[in-house]
């Protein structure tokens, strides 16, 4: 999830840069370049599908991160994100406790999930793809997130970030195949420069 957030930030940066380069009425690259902090108004949502339809939907309430948008080297714009899996919330306390247990996040031993971007690829005028390393439950794997610039106002910028994570890569595949191995992330990342 942290990776996803980071990716989102990176994506947003890419989008902003792209918009500057291609549209005369958008702010200059220098206007959006800079270091942004991910604010708590962001929403880190996820869904895990289940047999027969429906599934588990939830959010993480405790997270932090930054993204650096580099005007002269967009590909190396950097995204860094961390979240506390303890803050997971699905609306069902029993499910939350199960997710925090050793069966899934094991928050007693692993209190953070992190994402560090490796590169940012521009995929459209206001879209980008962020590739980086997600670390959860002591395991790291390369993951990709798609970012779309949603809004930009002054020193604030917002990105929609989506990604599909195979939870088996992180030793969290309990419940498969009843519950999908894929965790679909759908995040709204707000950054404050």
């Amino acid at each position, binding site marked *: 999830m942290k990776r996803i957030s980071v990716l989102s930030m990176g994506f947003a940066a890419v989008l902003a840069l792209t918009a500057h380069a291609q549209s005369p009425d958008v702010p200059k690259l220098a206007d959006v370049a800079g270091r942004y902090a991910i604010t708590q108004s962001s929403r880190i949502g996820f869904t895990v599908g*289940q*047999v*027969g339809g*429906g599934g588990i939907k939830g959010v993480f309430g405790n997270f932090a991160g930054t993204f650096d948008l580099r005007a002269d080297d967009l590909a190396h714009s950097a995204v860094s994100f961390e979240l506390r899996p303890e803050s997971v919330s699905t609306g069902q306390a029993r499910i939350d406790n199960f997710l925090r*247990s*050793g*069966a899934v996040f094991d928050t007693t031993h692993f209190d953070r999930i992190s994402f560090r971007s490796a590169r940012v690829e521009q995929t459209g005028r206001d879209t980008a793809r962020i590739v980086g390393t997600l670390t959860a439950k002591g395991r790291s794997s390369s993951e990709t997130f798609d970012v779309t610039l949603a809004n930009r106002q002054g020193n604030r910028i917002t990105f929609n970030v989506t990604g599909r994570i195979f939870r088996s890569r992180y030793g969290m595949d*309990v419940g498969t*195949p*009843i519950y999908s191995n894929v965790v679909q992330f759908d995040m709204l990342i707000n950054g404050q420069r």
Partner: protein
Amino acid sequence: MRDAADRYGRGTIILHWLIAVLILGLLVLGFVMTRPWIDPALQFSLYQWHKSFGMLTLLLAVVRLLHSLLGARVRPPTGLGHLERRMSKAMHLLLATLAVIVPLAGWAVASASPLEIPTFAFNLIDVPHLPLQKSDAGEAFWSTTHARLAYSILALVALHSTAALYHHYGRRDDVLLRMLGRAKTPAGKPSTECVP
């Protein structure tokens, strides 16, 4: 599965022992999986196996109940009094009925739970939930009902088994042997032949 007047058919015998093993296995599984100290991942897995085998038991128990209600009856052993015959008949009917009701109550637990965990029998068949309102209270009610009925059937199985052993070692009749497919022939020798 057709039964003769003095012996059970092969299908009846297989069904009887299969259901017996399933019920005892489910009781052990149900006890273990509800221990508070159990690993959460293992607990989740055990619950799903419990539900899968529970659904299989329900299916077999419905067949067994219908067969016992509609099929030909095996003649009770000679020497039983009127009260013993009635008690024996009642016990068999009660066991066959509970073998259906207990898994049904378990199905109700999964159906009433607000967690809405699917019943994906043996990771092959998505069994739909019963049309019950989902609530913590409803789940708790059906859980209690399921557990009490399960322990009731355990008590009845113990009684039923004791009675079978009494027939075999005390009365020395062929009540147990004929459910093992070894009912004595008229010549007094055990027979492995069953009426198909």
